[in-house]
């Protein structure tokens, strides 16, 4: 019994994922199927890729609200520039735009000392404005079918998008767990002043993580646009909120210093499985919103009751 409670305390979200899989397997004949599972992974990859970067940023004690807008900018550039630059060139420019936005956020947060919440809130509004100005409020279509073929292609029987997501998840996990940079992520998030005293260059360290999330948001946007063969200026609206939801579901604390990629993967899968399963059961998507919101609060409650130190000021 104690071990179960322990597991619930540490990774409550994976228990939820497990319950969801069992429930949907019994209630829908189409759910427990390898094709549906790879489908879920593809659906999860958009939020999932950003969530990997968000885990780094949030363990750092920061947050990035600009990812949805960055995603739209990268997708618009990657599709919109294809007539001039070809697919490779346009995709590279798209990825570069994500790196630039991330670097901009990081440098501003580092040099000015303004809270990342405010820095990226500004960027979220500004970058979205940039997207609308660049696109002229129009959707772009990729005329070269090779672009959308990539989004639908498979390798070893797995969709390429799912494979990319899995590979990057493994890499992110290894980096966070076994490298110096990964250790510093926790140190800076746990106690910024102490980390600085210990010789960690806090500013450049945080900058690197902002560049990472900018790049991942751009990559996610480009992969999303290959799925549709198009990009729209409103792409990625509210994705920052979904990403934060996934990361927090996975047990990463907003206060920093605590979290894991495995937890984040659980959070991402929970959202994707819930959406997929409810869809198969033909439940209107409205209820998914209510359930996800409630689960987010319940996970927070469990975390507060069982994992945090209790005290007068806490």
């Amino acid at each position: 019994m104690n071990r179960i409670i322990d597991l619930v305390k540490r990774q409550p979200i994976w228990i939820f994922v497990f319950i969801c899989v069992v429930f949907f397997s019994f209630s829908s004949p189409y759910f427990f199927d390898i094709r549906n599972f790879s489908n879920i992974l593809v659906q999860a990859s958009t939020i999932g890729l950003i969530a990997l970067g968000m885990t780094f940023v949030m363990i750092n004690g920061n947050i990035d609200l600009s990812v949805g807008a960055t995603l739209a900018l990268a997708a618009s550039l990657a599709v919109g520039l294809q007539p001039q630059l070809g697919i490779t060139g346009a995709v590279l420019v798209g990825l570069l735009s994500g790196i630039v936005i991330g670097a901009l956020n990081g440098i501003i947060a580092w040099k000015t000392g303004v809270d990342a919440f405010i820095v990226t809130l500004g960027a979220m509004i500004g970058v979205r404005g940039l997207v609308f100005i660049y696109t002229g409020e129009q959707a772009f279509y990729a005329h070269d079918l090779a672009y959308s073929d990539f989004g639908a292609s498979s390798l070893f029987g797995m969709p390429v998008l799912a494979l990319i997501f899995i590979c990057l998840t493994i890499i992110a996990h290894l980096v966070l767990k076994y490298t110096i940079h990964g250790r510093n992520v926790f140190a800076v998030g746990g106690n910024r002043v102490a980390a600085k005293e210990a010789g960690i260059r806090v500013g450049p360290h945080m900058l690197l993580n902002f560049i990472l999330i900018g790049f991942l948001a751009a990559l996610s946007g480009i992969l999303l646009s290959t799925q549709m063969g198009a990009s729209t200026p409103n792409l990625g609206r509210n994705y920052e909120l979904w990403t934060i939801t996934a990361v927090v579901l996975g047990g990463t604390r907003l206060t920093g210093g605590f979290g894991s990629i495995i937890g984040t993967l659980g959070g991402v899968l929970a959202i994707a499985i819930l959406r997929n399963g409810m869809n198969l059961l033909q439940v209107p998507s409205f209820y998914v919103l209510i359930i996800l919101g409630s689960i987010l609060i319940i996970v927070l409650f469990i975390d507060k009751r069982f994992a945090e130190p209790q005290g007068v000021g806490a």
Partner: protein
Amino acid sequence: MLQFFGKHGISVAFVLCVVIFSLSTQKFLSTDNFLTVVMQASIIGTIALGVTFVVIGGNLDLSVGSLLSFATVLVVDLHDKVGPGTAILLMFVFTLLIGSINGYLIGYLRLNSLIVTLGMLSAIQGITLVYSGGKNVDISDQTNTWFAFFGREALFGVPVPAIIFIVLGIILQIVLLKTGFGRKIFAIGGNATASLFSGLRRNRLVFSTYLLSAFTTGCAALILGSRVMGSQNNVGEGYELLVLAGVILGGTSLLGGSGSIARTVIGVLILAMIQNGLLLLGFPYYTQWLVTWVVIIVAVWLDIAAKRGKLFSTY
């Protein structure tokens, strides 16, 4: 120099905005245009008044955008079914009910406000869609209803939305500065532990700030519903962050314990002026968002730099 800008930066920015836009276009500096600016600011501004209390108390409210959608859909839909008076009453009852859920979870259970209101953002969106069945709602007879008063009419030449915004702003400024309640909100935001030991009921105070933000959101829904006489399910989407932008621009610290209603009003008006001025100058509509980006960061930067005594941080 740095100290001066830190303290009066927002007023300087306000004057600067007025001067720059007045010099560059003749259409800017007129009573009519000023009223237009206040009216454009009224929905976001009214919500920002309540959110200012929440933020001074040391919390955040990201659910106001969804709540605005919910309240607007509810009041517009009920208008034809039960009449405007009852519709408004019911709208406020349910909006305050949702506000009290926020307040209970954050005030009494002490859960992190950002995540709770993030969860509520999505839950309220779902509730709105379930209620409306995903369809847009509208008022069938748009000319013969006194409901039009809140968004479409004017008193003594001043549009009613502007009056609601300004009068609520004055009342809440007085509440914040001149009552014990207001002082206690500053206390719990400034130092939660100290205020607890001084015998302040933090639970109840935090709870009431969320009721207040739900109330001002309800007022904003009256303006919006009455102006449009209809509503989409996601009409308030993204408003929470624009509201926060106004509050932050007004110099209210996200850490809690400092801030003012008057400055929030100026912050929201600056955002509306940027929108209005750039449009008058013929810039594309979304240029205002780029300028907003710069203005928010510079404003907060100067504020922090003044407190730090140095322009750049030491990390």
